[in-house]
């Protein structure tokens, strides 16, 4: 088999222990933690011991820990993540229902980060140690130190409450939230498929503030890597050669330097998916976005064991897949990379 094929298989096999370890850690910690799941399921009301015992039996909490663990593992392998006792639906089904919302937000956030980070990094690198460079660097460091949820709220105050330009929260506004028919769950795509211009405009308007919130969080890292990578390339001999040939600076930067500088930039892009998912928790909470991350937070509040475990495993799997794709993509843009 070819190098890339073998590498992919290796990586997929390495994903298994990673997911397994996370699953085990979360499973054990959930069982150790104080608080009775049955009690929270019954709303903490005064219930008789028989009812509690019956519920414990129904959900398998009366079994020894290792039996519960084995049963859960067997279920996960078969694609059965258990049933959420908050909603009574299979966890996996709930996750798939919310997945498109998170992806849609994530992709838009990444686009914002790419545009902001890339342009600011490029500006800083081509004007190194001049005022524009200093300003950009301060912006990058500040974006690291910015609490995401705070940024989201400030944007809400300014653009939704004070100016009234954009909606405060959720994915769709007014009556459309009830009348809009989903196809794939990716609202933007659905609106295009249904040829519904009004809905599309509303969806985009709802996406602006959350995407900027999530995107700013990633801008700092992206911008710093762009700047550093560009500076390194601009120092190289072949750039001096290009300049001494009399090429315009714009051509030197955009055609000669940029391509080589792209490699580390793309790598960081892949690594950021973990940060992105972390940021999604806060963004989805602030903007009442019905995605996986806000589902996880609500499951935690309700101590919905299977939903918490399922979400963690799902997120871990998702990130592994993304990392794998980035790695393969990496070998495509840099022909020197061999596996």
């Amino acid at each position, binding site marked *: 088999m070819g190098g890339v094929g073998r590498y992919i298989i290796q990586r997929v096999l390495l994903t298994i*222990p*990673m*997911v397994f*370890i*996370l699953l085990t*850690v*979360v499973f054990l*910690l*959930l069982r*150790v*933690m*104080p608080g009775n799941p049955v009690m929270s399921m019954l709303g903490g009301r005064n219930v008789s011991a028989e009812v509690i015992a019956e519920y414990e039996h129904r959900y398998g909490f009366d079994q020894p820990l290792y039996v519960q663990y084995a049963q859960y593992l067997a279920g996960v392998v078969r694609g059965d993540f258990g049933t959420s006792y908050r909603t009574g639906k299979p966890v996996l089904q709930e996750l798939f229902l919310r997945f498109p919302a998170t992806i849609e937000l994530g992709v838009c956030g990444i686009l914002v980060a790419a545009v902001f980070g890339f342009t600011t990094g490029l500006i800083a690198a081509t004007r190194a140690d001049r005022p524009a460079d200093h300003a950009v*660097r301060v912006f990058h*460091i*500040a974006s*690291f*130190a*910015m*609490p*995401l*949820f*705070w940024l989201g*709220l*400030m944007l*809400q*105050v300014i653009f939704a*409450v*004070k100016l009234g330009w954009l909606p*405060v929260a959720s994915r769709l506004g007014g009556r459309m939230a009830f009348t809009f028919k989903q196809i794939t769950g990716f609202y933007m795509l659905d609106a295009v498929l249904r040829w519904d211009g009004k809905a599309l405009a509303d969806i985009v308007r709802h996406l602006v503030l959350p995407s900027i919130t999530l995107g700013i969080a990633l801008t700092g890292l992206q911008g*710093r*890597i762009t*700047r*550093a990578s560009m*500076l*390194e390339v601009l120092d190289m001999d072949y750039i001096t050669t290009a300049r001494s040939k009399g090429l315009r600076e714009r051509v030197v930067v955009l055609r000669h330097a940029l391509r080589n500088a792209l490699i580390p930039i793309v790598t960081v892009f892949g690594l950021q998916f*973990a*940060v*992105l*998912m*972390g*940021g999604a*928790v*806060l963004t989805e*909470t*602030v903007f009442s976005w019905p995605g996986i*991350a806000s589902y*996880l*937070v609500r499951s*935690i*509040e309700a101590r919905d064991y299977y939903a*918490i475990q399922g979400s*963690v495993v799902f*997120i*871990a799997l998702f*990130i*592994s897949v993304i*990392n794998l794709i980035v790695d393969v993509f990496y070998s495509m843009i840099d022909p020197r990379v061999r596996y």
Partner: protein
Amino acid sequence: MPDPSPRRPVQPHGLVAVLFWIVRKASRGRIALRGQHVLKVGFVVVVAFVLMTVLANRLPALNGYHPSLYRDAPRLEGPSAAHWMGTDQLQRDVFSRILSGGKASLIVAFSAVALSMTVGSLLGWISGFAGGWLDRVLSLTMDAIYSFPSMILAIVLVAMFGSGIAPMIWAVGFVYIPTYFRVTRAEVLQVRETSYIEAIRAVGASNTRIVLRHVAPNTVNAIMAVSSFNLADAILTVAALSFLGFGLPPPAPDWGFDIQNGQKYLQSGAWWLITFPGIMIIALSLGFGLIGEGISDLVNPKRKRKRV
């Protein structure tokens, strides 16, 4: 050869001097602090925040208003001469809550980073030095935790441990362990192959002695830089946990929790409830970030121009 620059630097005073002394000692006197403005600004910011928080918690009514008692202050009023940062819905002065609201953030950030630094570095030294199956199992476990979003992991953990300061320390501390593990393990692997370690081994030094006397000190620089960036991140994580309601129970003043409270009055235009706590979080996190920048420049002078 005479010193090329006869201008002597201004010596730092007081607490800043003590902190610089610690940095210099920790890095075995190999660094000069001349012109390290980024580092100095960071130190001053962090020291100011620590002093402010300690003072405000010792003397709750520092500016005439108690942070958590309900007073006759007006309800939900914007900034004025009497209440510099306005008042909240329970007629409390926002400014006095701001002054003492960093307690949980500072305690949790420092303790959690200390915890993960100790556990992570120890595991890293052991793993890097022992090698074999132990190294492989530890690395795999750490990589698994590391690749998972730290914010989500911290939320899940704190939800399991219960809310409050101690659970937050455990949760945030656990999340950062892999960071230190990776840094120290990488350093150990590098140092282990050098010829001076081989020489020490040839002289007959025990493994414990090699690790403690010769390998561990070499990892200190890297760990210091990482820990400052970590503190900056921990401040944000703690703020997020408090925002989601896993922090101190009300009515204790806390920046993250106060922002969550302010969210309810956002529609009525009470911008001061969320603006000021947020600025405090940014300033403190920025302070730690600047220290990290400064230390990284010291440890690796070549980096200064490139700033990766």
